[in-house]
């Protein structure tokens, strides 16, 4: 398999109409990694849920000029890692992001069943990162 340990990054205005662009990028990236069609669909779904969460969070807690969202996708060992990163401002509240994700229970069930791991953490003092991990399928012989 090719090496994809350098991240592919996409930054969009955190507006609903851009989420489809992020899905396109992650699908193209997953294609490069030889995931099959079903797995690519799963990854798109998970990224869509995480971006939706980020946008809802930003619109509740961040001043408008912070409304940006970055996806960073790369591989590490046998995993694909997808970070959804956004800046809410000083004192970023990872608790809030996490609570919000759990309250959107439809979104949460989808996210958890599509990914092997979902983590939410503070990034620096003013950012939030939703980290999605998916195992890379074993190479076909």
């Amino acid at each position, binding site marked *: 398999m090719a090496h994809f340990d350098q991240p592919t990054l996409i930054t969009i205005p955190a507006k609903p109409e851009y989420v*489809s662009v992020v899905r396109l990028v992650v699908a193209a990236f997953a294609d490069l990694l030889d995931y099959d069609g*079903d797995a690519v669909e799963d990854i798109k779904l998970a990224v*869509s849920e995480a971006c939706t969460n980020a*946008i809802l969070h930003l619109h509740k807690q961040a001043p408008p000029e912070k409304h940006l969202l970055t996806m960073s996708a790369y591989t590490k060992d046998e995993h694909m890692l997808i970070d959804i990163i956004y800046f809410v401002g000083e004192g970023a509240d990872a608790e809030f992001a996490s609570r919000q994700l759990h309250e959107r229970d*439809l979104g949460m069930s989808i996210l958890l069943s599509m990914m092997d791991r979902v983590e939410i953490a503070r990034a620096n003092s003013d950012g939030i990162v939703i980290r999605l991990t998916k195992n890379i399928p074993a190479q076909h012989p």
Partner: protein
Amino acid sequence: MDLKIESKEVEGVGVIVLEGEVDVYTAPKLKSRLIDIVDEGKFNIIIDLQKVEFMDSSGLGVLVGGLKRVKSHQGSILLVCTQENILKIFRITGLVKVFPIFSSEEEAIKSIQGS
């Protein structure tokens, strides 16, 4: 990729045909169309998802919201869907038990008329 929403009436039943992607951007358009139809007095509604290429929880949320609305008038929402990638999210979220799902509009209409 956007969402096309077509609504029609078939034998007295309100039918919404969707084509494209249902996500955080397009779900609000579906929501307001659903509300319009309920406001017109149609409480048994069929939503045809056969041409939906992508749907996430934003779309599911609107369907659940619509169902609450029609239920208060003893109505129902029936879905038409055969694509595995869309059916999957109904299974994962347990919503297969909440929405009757048919493989064609005709079957869904028959089911409403038979009840």
